[in-house]
């Protein structure tokens, strides 16, 4: 059974309470249709389980299959420099159907970023390194496609629907 490497830490983007008993980590790609399908289901899971769950997103852009996957991941990390990772994350999935090179700046404006700073950040090595570190962590953790989910550091063999089912059952 594959496990998460490295463990969740403060360098991750974490949504939810640190006191949560269940940590879900998703490895995803902003251009992957299956990840876009998972996006609202994760929101539902977060609503249904509230403080019991914390959600972490790591980048796993399939650059050869998806030309905008890597730039989109950079955009999310660049937004994170202004404390708006999740706003960009949500906007990217909600606008996946119209991903293009021009979209990132438009979304940056929509979510209220300083656009000039955002554009600079996209080019920074540290931003690129974060995306690559996430990818390597996925390779190490046995990611075998996107999205891949880990529940409390153990790979979950199934998609978002199965994940929701499993959580509901274990809560009963």
């Amino acid at each position: 059974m594959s496990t998460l490497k490295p463990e969740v830490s403060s360098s991750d983007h974490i949504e939810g309470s640190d006191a949560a008993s269940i940590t879900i980590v998703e490895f995803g790609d902003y251009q992957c249709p299956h990840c876009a399908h998972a996006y609202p289901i994760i929101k539902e899971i977060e609503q249904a389980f509230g403080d019991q769950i914390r959600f972490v997103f790591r980048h796993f852009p399939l650059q050869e299959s998806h030309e905008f996957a890597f730039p989109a991941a950079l955009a999310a990390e660049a937004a994170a420099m202004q404390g708006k990772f999740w706003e960009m994350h949500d906007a990217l999935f909600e606008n996946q159907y119209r991903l293009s090179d021009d979209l990132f700046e438009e979304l940056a404006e929509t979510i209220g970023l300083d656009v000039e700073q955002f554009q600079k950040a996209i080019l920074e090595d540290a931003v690129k390194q974060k995306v690559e570190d996430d990818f390597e962590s996925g390779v190490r953790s046995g990611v075998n496609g996107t999205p891949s989910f880990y529940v409390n550091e153990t790979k979950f063999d199934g998609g978002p629907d199965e994940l929701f089912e499993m959580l509901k059952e274990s809560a009963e």
Partner: protein
Amino acid sequence: MLEKGTTAPDFQLNATPDQKIKLSDFKGKNVILAFYPADWSPVCGDQMALYNEMLKYFSKHDAQMIGISVDSAWCHNAFQQDRKLHFPLLADFEPKGEVSKAYGVYDDEVGESKRALYVIDQEGKIAWSYLSPTAVNPGADGILNALEELEKK
């Protein structure tokens, strides 16, 4: 499947309609053999697409990735172009499945290779192997661990 430490059976298969590749061509390099059932799996990031994204991690360990299935060289050609794959796919096509059988990973019932991985060391010996359930894409963590073990030697 073949035991760790045994010599990997040599083979020669078509990589393109007019080019053949021999396992022994790679002596002095580590080789990863990824047997898989068929080209054109209908998912994002299927096993071959995934390895394609990870080639730089394999080359860090001086390892050559090679995919093998019973699809023909023409089929591989089209698949490779469509998915922009940067490593060879070999056609275990004629006699069908011969190499897969030599490595103990042929599924007689469906007439396809099973989903199986071999890491072969620089001397051509089997260093690690893994048979995955056909429906489960095994990822690459096992391969990387095996390559790291080889480096420790």
